[in-house]
C-alpha cells in the first residue's frame, strides 16, 4: 500500500514539473530567437518581479483573473464552457460604474449595491447564452463568443452616447467618478501596519480579500452542497443525473447565469479600487487570460489562485525585459507554453494513473 501512495505523490508533482520544464525550454527558444540570453531574461524578470512594488502589481493583476477564472470554472464543472466572460465583465463593470455613481448609500452598502448591479448585468448577459443553449440548442461556445463581440460594441456605444460624464472635458471618455462611499478601500493602510512600506504607484486592490472569499465560497458550494453536487452531476453525466432527479437543462441555465454573475464582478477590482469610473482604458483580455488560468488551475480554487498569481507575476515582471532589449511580449509565449504543456501533461499523467491502477488491480485479483 505504501508504494502506491509514493507513486501518487510523484505523479501529482510530475505533471506540473514536466509542464514547467517544457515551457521553460520553449520560452528560452523564443528568447534565443531574438539573439538574447534566456538566462539574463529570467534573472532580470526575477529581480524586477520580486520587488514589493511589482508584487503589489502582481496581486492587482491576479485579482480580476482569479474572479473571472472562478466564473469559468463554474461552467466547466457543469460540463459547459463560458468563453463569454470578457463581455460579461465588461458590461458588469460599465453598468456598475455608471449606475453606482447615480446614488449615494452608506459605505459598505454602496459597494454591495454596485456589486449586485454588476452581477445582475453579467448574469443576464450570460443567461442569453444559457437560454439559447437550453431552448434552441445553440452551442454556448459560439453564442458566448458572439456575445463578447456584442458586449464590446454595446459598451463603447453606451459609453460614448449615454454613460459618458460630460461635465469633465477629457479625451479619455469616462463615466462619472464614484462617490467615496462606492470606492473599495485600498489594502495599503493594512499592509503598512504589518511593516510594508508605501511604493510609488503602489497599492493593493481591496477586492483581493473578496477574491479570496469567493474562492472559499466556490469550493464550499461546489463540493459541500446539494446544489454543487447537482451541478457536477449534470456536467459529468447528464443522463445519470436526470435519472437521479436532476433537471440538467435547468442546471445548464443556472450554471451559465451564475457564471455570468460572478464574471460581472471581475471588472470591478480596477473600477472600485483604482479608476473609480469606467473609461476607455478599461483593460481588455482579462476574460481570455482567465480561461487559461482556469485550465491551468484545473478548476480548483487553490490551483486557480496559484495560476492567477503566476500569470500576474509573468505579466508584471516581463515589463523589465524592455531594459535588456527583449520584447516584453515574451510573457505571452511563456503563458501559452505553460498552458498547453500542462494541459497535455495532466492528461498523460491521468492516463498513466489509470493504467497503474488497473495493473495493481490485476495483481490483487491474481494474488
Amino acid at each position, binding site marked *: 500500500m505504501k508504494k502506491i501512495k509514493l507513486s501518487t505523490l510523484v505523479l501529482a508533482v510530475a505533471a506540473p514539473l514536466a509542464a514547467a520544464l517544457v515551457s521553460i525550454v520553449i520560452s528560452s527558444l523564443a528568447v534565443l530567437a531574438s539573439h538574447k540570453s534566456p538566462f539574463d531574461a529570467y534573472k532580470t524578470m526575477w529581480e524586477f518581479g520580486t520587488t514589493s512594488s511589482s508584487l503589489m502589481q502582481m496581486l492587482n493583476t491576479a485579482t480580476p483573473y482569479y474572479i473571472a477564472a472562478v466564473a469559468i470554472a463554474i461552467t466547466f464543472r457543469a460540463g459547459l464552457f463560458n468563453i463569454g466572460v470578457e463581455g460579461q465583465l465588461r458590461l458588469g463593470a460599465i453598468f456598475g460604474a455608471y449606475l453606482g455613481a447615480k446614488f449615494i448609500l452608506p459605505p459598505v452598502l454602496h459597494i454591495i449595491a454596485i456589486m449586485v448591479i454588476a452581477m445582475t448585468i453579467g448574469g443576464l448577459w450570460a443567461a442569453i447564452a444559457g437560454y439559447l443553449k437550453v431552448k434552441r440548442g445553440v452551442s454556448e461556445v459560439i453564442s458566448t463568443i458572439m456575445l463578447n463581440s456584442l458586449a464590446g460594441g454595446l459598451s463603447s456605444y453606451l459609453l460614448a452616447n449615454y454613460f459618458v460624464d460630460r461635465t469633465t472635458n477629457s479625451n479619455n471618455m469616462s463615466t462619472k467618478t464614484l462617490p467615496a462611499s462606492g470606492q473599495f478601500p485600498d489594502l495599503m493602510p493594512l499592509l503598512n501596519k504589518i511593516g510594508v512600506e508605501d511604493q510609488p504607484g503602489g497599492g493593493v486592490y481591496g477586492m483581493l480579500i473578496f477574491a479570496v472569499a469567493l474562492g472559499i465560497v466556490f469550493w464550499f458550494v461546489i463540493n459541500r452542497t446539494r446544489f454543487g453536487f447537482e451541478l457536477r452531476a449534470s456536467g459529468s453525466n447528464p443522463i445519470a443525473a436526470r435519472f437521479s432527479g436532476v433537471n440538467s437543462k435547468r442546471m445548464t441555465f443556472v450554471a451559465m447565469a451564475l457564471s455570468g454573475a460572478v464574471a460581472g464582478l471581475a471588472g470591478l477590482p480596477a473600477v472600485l479600487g483604482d479608476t473609480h469610473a469606467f473609461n476607455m482604458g478599461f483593460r481588455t483580455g482579462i476574460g481570455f487570460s482567465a480561461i*487559461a488560468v482556469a485550465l491551468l488551475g484545473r478548476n480548483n480554487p487553490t490551483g486557480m489562485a496559484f495560476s492567477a498569481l503566476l500569470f500576474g507575476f509573468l505579466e508584471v515582471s516581463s515589463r523589465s525585459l524592455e531594459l535588456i532589449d527583449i520584447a516584453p511580449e515574451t510573457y505571452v509565449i511563456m503563458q501559452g507554453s505553460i498552458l498547453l504543456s500542462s494541459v497535455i501533461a495532466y492528461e498523460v499523467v491521468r492516463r498513466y494513473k489509470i493504467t497503474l491502477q488497473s495493473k495493481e488491480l490485476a495483481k490483487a485479483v491474481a494474488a
Partner: protein
Amino acid sequence: MKTKALKFLRYATMLVFVLTVIRQITGATDLTSVGTASAALLLSVPIVLAGLGGLFSERSGVVNIGLEGMMVMGAWAGGMIGTKHGPWIGLIAAIFFGGVGALVHAIATITFGVDHVVSGVAINIIAMGLVRYLSTLLYKSGSWLGPSQSPDVNSIPTNSLPILSGGQYFGWKSPDLLGSLAEKHWFFISDLAAILRGITGDLSYVTVIAMAMVPLSLFVLWKTAFGLRLRSAGEAPIAAESLGVNVYAMKYAGVLISGALAGLGGGFLAIVAANHYQENQVAGRGYIGLAALLFGNYRPGGILMGAGLFGFADALQLRDSASVHALILLIVVVLVGLVVRDVRKGKIVKAVLTLAFAGLSLWYFLAVDELPGQLVTMTPYIATLLIMSLASQRLRMPAADGIPYRRGGLR
C-alpha cells in the same frame, strides 16, 4: 440532388425579391447593388474556408475551436511572407502556418487525448500571443512599420466570368451582359442581375480557388474511399478500426486539412480582402466559420449558405449603415413569417411573443433614421446569433464528434 438545387434556387430568388421590395420601400439602394454582392462574396470566402476546415476536422471526430487561432497564424504568415515573396508564396505560407497550428491541435487531442475544446481554446490563446510576439520582433528589427501591421502585399489579379460579366481573355474583351442589365433599373430583374454580376465579376483568382473547395470537399468526403474512412472515424471509430481503417491517421488528416483551409482563410483576409496583415484582422471569423458549419448541418452546401448570409451582413455593415437600418425591416418580415407559421401550428403564446418582438423591431425601424456606428459593426455577430438560434435545432453532428478516441478502447 436536383430537387435540392431547385429548392435552393427558389429560396435564393425569394430572398432577392424580398430584398428588392425592401430596397424599394426604404430607398437603401446598396441592399442589392453590385458592390454589396461583390463585397459579400469577398467576406464570405474566409468564412467558407473556416467552415470547410471545421467540416474536415469534425467529420473525422475532432472538434476544432482552434480554427480561429489557425486563421490568425495564416493571416500573419500571409502578411509576413507575402510582403517579401509575393502574394502566392504568402498564401502557401498561410496554408503551412495554419497546418502547423493544426498539428499542435492534432498532437494534443489525438495522440494525448486532451479535451478538444480545451486544446482548441489553448491554441487560440497561444496563436494570438505568438503572432503578437513575432510581430514585435519584426517591428524591432525594422522590417515592419508598426508592431501590429505588416507592409503591403502585392495584389493578386482579378478576372470576370466571360460573356456574362465582362473581363479580359487573351486580349479579347468580353461583353458585360449582367452589368448592363443591372444599370437598367428594372424592378427585381436589375436587382437580380446586379447580385449575379457582383458574385461573378472582378473575382480574385484566389476567390475562385476557394469557392472550388466547396464542391471539392463534397467530392472528397462523400465520393472517395478516403472520405468514407475519414467520416467513419468521426461516426464510429471502433467499428472503423475493426475494419482496418487507421483511425488516428484519418483524424490527423482531418485536422491537418482543417488547419490548411483555415490558414488559407486567414491568408485570404490578409492578402486578398486587405493588402496587409493587421492585428485582430481575423476578429472571430474562425468562430463564425464554426457557426456556419453548424448552420449548414455539417454539409458543404450548408456551409456555403451560412457563410453567404454572414458575408452579406458583414458587407452591408462595412459599406453602408443605411442598409443595415433597412435590414431591420427584413427581420420584421421574417418574424411576421414566423408568426404566421406559429398561428397555423396553434402556438398562440409563442406567436404573440414573436409578434410583440416584430412590433418592437418595426417601431425601432421607424423611430431611428440611422443606426449609430458602434451598433452597425455588431451586425455580423447579431446575424450569427439570430441565424444560429433559428436554425440549429435539426442538427445531426457526427456521432463520435468531440469524444477522445483511444485505440483498443482504452481510456
